């Protein structure tokens, strides 16, 4: 603890002090440095978590930036922005110390704007992650650690939900239309009753009440219908995409994974599915091997089936009802299987042409994705950058509070303390940037 003396008098002039304990800096700066120490410990806890989870992850699984749509250059730009803002705030402090309040204010405005830019880029990055489904979620994240049966069934469930929802909406629309038609007929009849002068007054009154009810119901139906009709086209389009995916991608995969005896085809089937949905660069070569293997197996099966069909179609000399029925059954099964294979091939061809996978092409699909260690990556990424962003926001709020003030020499202390905080935020980012974007 450094103590020092000073000669003459205390600036409040109460008493002649010869001895002044404490540090030669203002209380604000002391408490701010102490606060920064607590912040260091806070981030040490968070970074320690990152290190344990990052290096404790099964070897070779931690996602590369490319795997999770993380752009290194955005991180670099943000680093640049923060460094610029650090310079501007330190210059603002110097300006305030030199009593140049307008210059200080301008520099603070620059700092504030830079901070906003930083947050803007961060928000854009977050948006990208959310769009691709890379975030932890209850009860089960969209991210799966590996492409196993759980994963395949989750994909199938999601696709089935989509198709079911579309079907339900279609059915609702049809139902509404039908109800409207029925009501129209009833209206005509009731109108007849009302217009007929010979009707019983009681009956007319009833009819009128009923007509009012019908009008109300029709307007209800129309408002409900309008949304459904407006969505009909989109639904049709979605169904056109989702149905083949459900049948030829998800179900095919599950069946293949459950029934294939060749382990390569079994594992490969799900890997292919995962790749079609969310292609991981590192999986590329292997999945293509799997695809080739599957294609070969498919070709073989197709040849076999075609032969069988031909064989079955050739007329047989002997007539036997039982055998005939069996042959017809076999023929139908073989043709159905051939149709399935054709559907699979068609779907694969369509999907293979996509560069960034199904989820990227059709955001509405929101299919489960496979990223090894992806959930932990997302957890730590959002934890670290999220807390950093909260600190940036707090900094911006402080800036907003001091901007209206006259930033002259009397406020230099305040500006210095704000600056110390802001530099600390910068410091944290200096470590986060390589850890999250480059490691």
């Amino acid at each position: 603890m450094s103590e020092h003396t000073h000669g003459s008098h205390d600036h409040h002039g109460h008493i002649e002090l010869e001895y002044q304990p404490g540090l030669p800096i203002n209380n604000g700066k002391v408490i701010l440095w102490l606060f920064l120490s607590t912040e260091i410990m806070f981030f040490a806890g968070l970074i320690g978590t990152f290190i344990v989870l990052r290096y404790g992850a099964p070897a070779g699984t931690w996602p590369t930036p490319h795997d999770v749509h993380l752009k290194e250059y955005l991180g670099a730009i943000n680093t640049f922005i923060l460094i610029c803002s650090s310079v501007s705030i330190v210059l603002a402090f110097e300006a305030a110390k030199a009593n140049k309040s307008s210059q200080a204010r301008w520099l603070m405005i620059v700092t504030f704007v830079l901070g906003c830019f930083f947050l803007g880029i961060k928000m854009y990055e977050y948006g990208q992650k959310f769009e691709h489904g890379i975030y932890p979620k209850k009860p089960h994240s969209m991210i799966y650690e590996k492409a196993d049966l759980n994963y395949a069934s989750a994909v199938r469930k999601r696709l089935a939900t989509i198709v079911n929802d579309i079907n339900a909406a279609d059915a609702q629309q049809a139902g509404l239309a039908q109800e409207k038609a029925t009501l129209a007929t009833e209206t005509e009849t009731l109108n007849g009753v009302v217009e007929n002068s010979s009707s019983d007054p009681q009956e007319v009154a009833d009819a009128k009440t009923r007509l009012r009810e019908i009008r109300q119901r029709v307007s209800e139906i129309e408002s409900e219908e309008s949304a459904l009709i407006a969505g009909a086209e989109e639904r049709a389009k979605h169904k056109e995409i989702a149905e083949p995916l459900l049948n030829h991608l998800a179900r095919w995969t599950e069946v293949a994974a459950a029934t294939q005896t060749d382990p390569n085809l079994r594992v490969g089937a799900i890997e292919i599915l995962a790749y079609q949905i969310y292609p991981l660069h590192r999986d590329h070569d292997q999945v293509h091997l799997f695809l080739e293997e599957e294609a070969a197996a498919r070709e073989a099966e197709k040849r076999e089936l075609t032969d069988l069909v031909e064989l079955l179609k050739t007329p047989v000399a002997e007539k036997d009802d039982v055998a005939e029925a069996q042959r017809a059954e076999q023929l139908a099964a073989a043709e159905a299987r051939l149709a399935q294979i054709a559907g699979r091939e068609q779907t694969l061809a369509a999907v293979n042409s996509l560069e960034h996978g199904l989820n990227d092409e059709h955001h509405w699909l929101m299919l489960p994705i496979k990223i090894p260690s992806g959930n932990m990556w997302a957890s730590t990424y959002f934890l670290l950058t999220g807390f950093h962003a909260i600190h940036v926001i707090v900094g911006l709020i402080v800036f907003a509070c001091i901007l209206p003030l006259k930033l002259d020499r009397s406020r230099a202390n305040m500006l210095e303390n704000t600056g110390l905080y802001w530099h600390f935020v910068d410091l944290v980012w200096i470590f986060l940037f390589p850890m999250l974007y480059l490691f």
Partner: protein
Amino acid sequence: MSGQGEMTVWEKSMSFVSTYVFSRDHKIIGLQFLFSTLLWFLVGGLLALGIRWQLAWPWSNMPVIGPMLFSAEGGQISPEFYTTLFTMHATVMIFFVIIPILAGAFGNYLIPLMIGADDMAFPTLNMLSYWLMWPAFLLIGASFFTAPYGAGGGWTSYPPLSAMVEAAPGSMSAQTLWLLGITFVGFSSMMGSVNYMTTIIQMRAPGMTMFRLPMTIWGMFITAILQAFALPVLTAAGVMQLTDRMFGTGFFIPENLVVNNSVAASGGGQPLLWQHLFWFYSHPAVYIMILPAMGMVSDMIACFARKPLFGYKPMVYSISGIAGLGFIVWGHHMFVSGMNPVLGMTFMVSTMMIALPSAVKTFNWLGTIWGSQIRFTTPMLFSLSFVAMFIIGGLSGIFMAATPVDIFIHDTYFIVAHFHYVLFAGTAMAVFGAIYFWFPKMFGRMMNETLGKIHFFLTFIFLNGTFYTMHILGAVGFPRRLADPYDYPTFAHLQPLNEFMTVCAILMVASQVFFAFNFIYSIFFGPAVGRNPWRCNGLEWTAPSPPGHGNFDFQPIVYRGPYEYGSPEADEDYYPQTEAPPKEAPVVAPAH
């Protein structure tokens, strides 16, 4: 002392609310902390009785308090409710009683007075640190009453039990509320501690060098350092557990756990990570819970022994040593947790070493009363019992520090005995003593000595009856946190011993009536006293009782350390820090 001029200006314009409710005066804030924590002390004590009741007479209806406290159970404690009981007992006692009564109540009240400042360095921040306790009070209070049961993860809140809703269906949102509450306690303590440090570093009166500070202030200072550096780590961990519960992050949950027949959110995390982060805070926290008490006891013992504190500097060094070592011993809570056993060895050595400064302190207290003239007042009796109990609590700690022995006694009642000796028999007794001691300063009136001594006698007898027997339970291997241990043949014969302890515990809580009555009665009707009823040296005794705004009606200048009792230089047997030496010019500490 620059603030006094301005102080009177704003003093005049203050309404009742700003004087007594949203006050920025450290003394009012200190008293607010004191009253809040004493109320919570009552709650925590009743919760403890619930636990004791269940252990003595499992699954039987608890008379009187049972229907009051847990009417939903019809006075009978269910296993879920039992987990809530011990979780809340620990949470309330640690986060709402011991830490805030030491740092919040006494820290706030005494720091500016004892260092000769008019207030804290940042009074508004100080006020905020009290009012941030209220969200915590409400959240944790609410978690207790949340259906179906309160938080049941233990105060250590080990994941996955606490991080997964499925694992403890009884806790549901209560555990989430609990975590939020702890986060608020964290913010409050963090604000308080940086403020205390700044105040102690910056606001000392002229002449008050660091080595003229009373031990109480040293205790508070080191405590503030511990809090400031350790708590953020707990806050970070708590936030992570919250996101595990709410957003499915899985920091502390391994992959695809099957809990309660449902597959949990995909994880990939590590349950042990929580334990590391948690104990990184919570081990220093046990020193947070005793260092200020040690400081206050040192002050009281020196005052009533009428003798300088034996080995002031070694005392200061040893609490600093405890603080430093306190940060590197957290692993001893994890010896059998599955942590790398090699780490266990490192932590074992550092843990053994931390017993050393504690021993030094004890010897110094003994040295202080050696050759003294003891006045057996209530605060002195409580202080001496602190020393006696701390010896037991400290020695039983050595058993746990020895890793192989810890294999057997870990999570048994031996541990419970150990920390109750340190925290209840130690800290709580010191706090009682401190209340009796500083009560005249706080309220300008004395507490009744006879009632105080009865209170001391009964508490002392019954606390030993309750907690000493726990050592024996621990030696049998009796585990903590079991709602009904008597199903185990190994422990079935321990019920009579538990009954004995429960009777003692009930009587111990009942004896606090003497304290409660004495406290409330004396606030209004106790005999009024002057500035320095105990004839002490500290700066706080030169201020009026109770001190007004700005504390001192003169500028205190400090000439010597706080323990100059019986000094041959002085006419009387005490020598206040502010009293100028006769004839000589003011002695000024050498500058450097």
